[in-house]
């Protein structure tokens, strides 16, 4: 059971797996030297690697619903998850990078700074996780995390830097998690504080809502034919806590094998089947919130992400 929990939490942590590939973007040179091709290389800005992170306790997090209380139902998993998360960082299987562009120098209040999130790959050949948290470690970013304009697909808006504290939000966050799929979350918020010398990010907090369907699209790390949602419902007995559409909360039921088999809408309507979490009428989600700290790092280039097979 412990291993199952570890796997679930591992998946929740959006661990980046898979081998590192050298930079091999299609916009490379050409055999006979024709027109100069444009390289797809984002400006990563000032980069930090998350060196500690974990689920906050359920009574801590962002107030997503406006009721004056923190929303973080998946925080119930924190006691099981957080040691795993720390170990994942230690062994280099969870490399989460934040890139801040247009940061005032020296640090000052600003609304122009831009924040992007990346799941990185160790830049060492062969990978050497022991220096990941050295403050000058080098990483690659899978090109699958870019859009066609060569910007991160995980970009925050409403960025505000005030008195050294950075806050941001985004209506939709898509984080590439190669092991289980892409985690889609909504109403995401983030905050952290710059150390005066900008050598650390402290008191970091990130949270949002992941819909039942989004969680149902993620592969389960413990049940081969199951989903992450199956584990959340079947193994942990957690129900959605965020009423996204204002019509009341849905309820999910799992069978004895831990598979979601039935969904119930607030009006009592039953939707049968393993696919019920993705029924268009199912709009509720689970709240979650992480704490984190970070220290400087370097992104040295792009890697052909394993999801970019072309």
């Amino acid at each position, binding site marked *: 059971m412990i291993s199952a929990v570890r796997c679930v939490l591992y998946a929740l942590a959006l661990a980046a797996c898979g081998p590192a590939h050298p930079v091999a973007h*299609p916009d490379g040179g*050409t055999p006979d030297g024709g027109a*100069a091709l444009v390289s*797809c290389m984002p400006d990563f800005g000032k980069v930090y690697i998350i060196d500690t992170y974990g689920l906050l306790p359920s009574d801590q997090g962002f107030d997503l619903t406006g009721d004056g209380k923190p929303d973080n139902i998946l925080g119930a998993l924190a006691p099981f998850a957080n040691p795993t998360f720390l170990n994942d960082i230690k062994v280099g299987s969870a490399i989460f990078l934040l890139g801040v562009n247009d940061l005032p120098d020296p640090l000052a209040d600003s609304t122009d700074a831009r924040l992007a999130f990346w799941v990185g790959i160790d830049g060492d050949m062969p990978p050497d996780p022991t220096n990941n948290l050295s403050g000058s470690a080098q990483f690659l970013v899978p090109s699958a995390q*870019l859009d*066609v304009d060569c910007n991160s*697909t995980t970009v925050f808006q409403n960025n505000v830097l005030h008195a050294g504290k950075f806050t941001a939000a985004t209506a939709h966050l898509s984080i590439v998690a190669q092991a289980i799929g892409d985690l889609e979350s909504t109403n995401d918020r983030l905050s952290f504080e710059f150390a005066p010398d900008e050598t650390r990010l402290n008191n970091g907090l990130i949270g949002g809502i992941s819909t039942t369907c989004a969680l149902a699209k993620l592969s389960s790390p413990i049940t081969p034919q199951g989903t992450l949602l199956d584990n959340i419902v079947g193994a942990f007995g957690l129900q959605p806590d965020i009423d996204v559409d204002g019509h009341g909360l849905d309820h999910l039921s799992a069978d004895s094998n831990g598979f979601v088999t039935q969904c119930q809408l607030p009006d009592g309507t039953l939707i049968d089947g393993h696919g019920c979490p993705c029924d268009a009428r199912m709009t509720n989600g689970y709240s979650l919130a992480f704490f984190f700290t970070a220290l400087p790092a370097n992104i040295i280039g792009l890697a052909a992400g394993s999801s970019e097979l072309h």
Partner: protein
Amino acid sequence: MASLRFGWLPLLALSGCSLITKFDPSQASESSAAQCSDGVDNDADGLTDCQDFKCLSQPVCCNLPVIVLADDFQHRDCAQATCDQPDPTCTLDAGKWQPWGLPQPILCNGGLSPHKAELCYDVGALGQAPLPLHPGLSVAVTVAGIPETAGQLAVGLTRQPQVGSGNTPCALVQGFQPEIAAIEARSTNGYVFLASFDHSTVAESPEITDDGAHAIRMQIGSDRRVIWLLDGVEFAQSPADQALPGGMNPLTARLGLAGRGLNARFLDARVSDGTQCDAPNAWVPNDGNAFVALSGADDNNKSWDSYQVFAPAVTTVGNQVMLYYSGCTASSLDDSCSQELGIGLATSADQLSFARAPTNPLYPPRARFGLEPGLLRDPTGSSNVTLFISVNALASQQNQEVYRETSADQMQFMETGTAVLQPGPPGSWDDGEVCCSSVLPDNGGLTMWFAGHSKSDGTWRIGVARSSDGFHFTEDPANPVVREGANGDFDQNGVDDPEVLFDDARKLYRMWYTGNTVLGETALGYAVSTDGVRWHKFPGNPVLRPLDVGLQVVGSPAVLADEGELRMWLQGRADDPRLHIYALSNRGKAPQ
């Protein structure tokens, strides 16, 4: 032997020998592969190389592509919606394509767009038809739009039976992996195509710096190497030591149209496999119900075209075939067409099923002997439609003459009071009536072919007239340029209803016409001309007899030429006394 004979000719001519005057050019031939490709009118009949009927079966002249897959995304009406608000009902033809990926590519902004913002794997559509990777296979795709920095379109031939499709826009899947491809890549000032063979780039195209339409083509040559062409100019060839496997059972692949990004889109795609020969008499009726393209409304004379429809004229606007036709109600006296004639429009997106325009009749019924639409065939694809209507007003006892009517919306025509072509002066070959025109743009003006007859002789013949302003036509002094045939010929009693197209590849005017023989029998004839004046009737005429397609009468052909295929709509009558409009096609014949 032939070269020996021609080797004598200059000598004979230079010698002034009287033998030259006895040389009969008709005894020379133009039928061998060499003669059909030497740029010389060897038999001095006015037709050179592939223009000459005798060369039609020569492989060198068999250049009509055999189309195995064609889709015109650009001209789908529903594809004109913006990509931000696409028409949800506007989907790819499932009989041709199998889309993959999330989000799925959509038809919008006048094309097929990946409409995918993420850089991760390309979305697209895989052609359903397996394509043999052998000489003669050609893939032609038109694209438009400069891709984003990491956006791209890719057209490729893949041996994948299907392309993986995850449940999120960047799911871990096996993506599109074509063995032969042309892939866009952004460059400093625009973009280029990278020719890819066996997953390696072999060459880069010239840079494209505008967002207009450009044609990318990949074709397999006789040496089983692939060549890539951009806008008709070759820029890449697969390695000489990597020729595709030969043999009777070539590898097969499928066409994939893939990409990512929001800016670039596919306008059309066309795959041909080999070529065929022009065969003027290889007309085949459309299958099943599609043979009858349009019939009378048959609603007890409630509609203006209740009884019968006839005299088709066709053109295209976008991907729509615009079929203009004459119609009438039933006579109150007997089972025949009344003299209340009108002109209507029926349209079709698939060239098979036609729907009447809601505003029919476009040209209101009047008491007339004749009322037939002719069309200006504008190769620019303009949405303006110009009809040349042959009118004979019963009340005024006027002879039939031709009026010009133009419409910007293809449906509302204004009647103008002045005829653009009237019967000729007294005593001329066409002083009786003129009608049934076919018009082409020509050197900044218009050229019209029409039928006419004299007052003294009811035999219809075909003439040509030209206009510099499109309104005042002057007949050619050589008129009539097509006459009735000799006794016993299928057109011995007259020729009319000319339909003329210009074949730009062969620089050849092509005419289909109605031949009248004895006892009211008809058949369709075919003729060609290099100047529109001197016409050569096809030796194998008629190209279509009524009984060939189960009819009693055929006439008034209207023809559309598409790449590798001709489509004809004609008026015909079977056992029913009423005329209907029938549809046929001609895809030529295989080289011998």
